[in-house]
């Protein structure tokens, strides 16, 4: 039944190993403006994930060959710290971090008004300090807050959440065990206000019905995270009551 052996991760009452229900997300904490030297920054603590994002720019794009004559280039660098997981990660870029950097840049291309800064570059640094499944989602959410904090014009905030399948049941926001031993994973990036989809990946197999449930779970998780993002930005800029 399970992905690897028959690890039972959800009981007959729909309670998961960490006590959450199927549609419940892990506790989330967001703080903005944590790096004074960056133009914008944010940290997201999402369950066991701790992700920091910093934004620099818009700035002159170097080397010149990467410049676009009609818009800015989003230079995203996603990196996991060597100590972020139980096994040490070899420092530097690898296939996975390149892929995540690319999909993150493409997600933000839909909302950042890059046409206002032709020939320039906006650098987004995402550093995973502690990883516990769903780091790309936490990274995109952190980068979104950091972009807003940096004053980059964008049409919406992007929030990313993943749902997946464990023991044949669709659940929202997989933790480490569920991610390792689960059967499918569906990370999505959604614009908070318009509801537009800017990023979607799928790992494993989901039936059309299961896909719909995972979609609904992800969409349902957007609003509470959006409120936390707004609260973080307001606290950072003196707007909190």
């Amino acid at each position: 039944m399970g992905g690897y052996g028959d690890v039972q991760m959800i009981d007959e009452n729909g309670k998961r190993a960490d006590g959450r229900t199927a549609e419940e997300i892990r506790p989330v904490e967001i703080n903005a403006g944590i790096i004074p030297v960056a133009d914008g920054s944010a940290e997201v603590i999402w369950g066991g994930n701790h992700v920091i994002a910093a934004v620099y720019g818009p700035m002159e794009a170097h080397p010149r060959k990467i410049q676009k004559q009609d818009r800015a280039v989003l230079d995203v660098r996603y990196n996991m710290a060597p100590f972020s997981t139980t096994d040490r990660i070899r420092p530097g870029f690898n296939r996975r971090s390149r892929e995540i950097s690319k999909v993150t840049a493409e997600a933000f291309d839909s909302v950042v008004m890059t046409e206002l800064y032709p020939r320039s570059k906006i650098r987004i640094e995402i550093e995973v300090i502690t990883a516990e499944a769903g780091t790309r989602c936490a990274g995109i959410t952190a980068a979104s807050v950091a972009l807003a904090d940096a004053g980059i014009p964008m049409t919406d905030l992007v929030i990313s959440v993943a749902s997946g399948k464990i023991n044949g049941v669709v659940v929202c926001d997989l933790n480490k065990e569920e991610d390792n031993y689960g059967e499918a994973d569906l990370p999505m990036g959604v614009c908070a206000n318009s509801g537009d989809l800017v990023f979607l990946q799928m790992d494993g197999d989901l039936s059309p019905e299961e896909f719909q449930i995972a979609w609904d779970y992800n969409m349902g998780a957007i609003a509470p995270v959006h409120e936390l993002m707004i609260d973080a930005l307001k606290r950072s800029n003196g707007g909190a009551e």
Partner: protein
Amino acid sequence: MTDQSALGGRDGRGTRLVTPGASLGASEGRRIGHGIVVNDGQMIAVKLGAVVESEQEISILPTHTRYTPRPGDLVIGVVEAVQSNLWFLDINAPFNALLPMSLGPGKSEFGGARHVLNVGYTVLCRIQEVDETHSSVVTMKGLGLRRVDSGIIEEIPPHLMNSLFSDGAALKLLKSTTDCRVVLADNGRMWIDGSPSSISSVISKLERVRTMSRDISNLDSMIEVIQAEVQ
């Protein structure tokens, strides 16, 4: 989706702080200012900041922004690169500005640009022209435009320049009370020259301004407080 008007609404202290994507309602014939776009007749905030609205116009005063060069602006630039017949200056904008040798200081020969202004030198110059790709050309031909050899350069948020120093009174007071020579450039850089003690006095005032400028919960009172601080 969450309606931001409830979350980003007035916070009880007078200023409405909005985040990107927040719906600001219909424009109702008002002019759309900085930080807002209109989609299907609805105004949407594209920047994090405070909503500034009047009967004629609505705009957003951003919490952070970059300087956008305009022709005629007085700017303080730092030489970033030198070529045979031109200099590239960092003017605190997203793009470096060009200073051609013909508009540079004094006489210099082809290939001798480095002897006149080297990397790291600071200059007071004026924006000559800006093209549609935001490339800007600066000039040092003009009254008071020169190389900066003494004092220090401090930065203040470019979006607060108008609110704080538009009438010139705050700057005059800053100069007279600290006995410093102060040149405020449009790109948010300030050249401060004087005795070490008076320079440090100006720096401490500006540091407080920078700290306070992050709190835009009540825009009007913030500007009052900052002006008092500067004075």
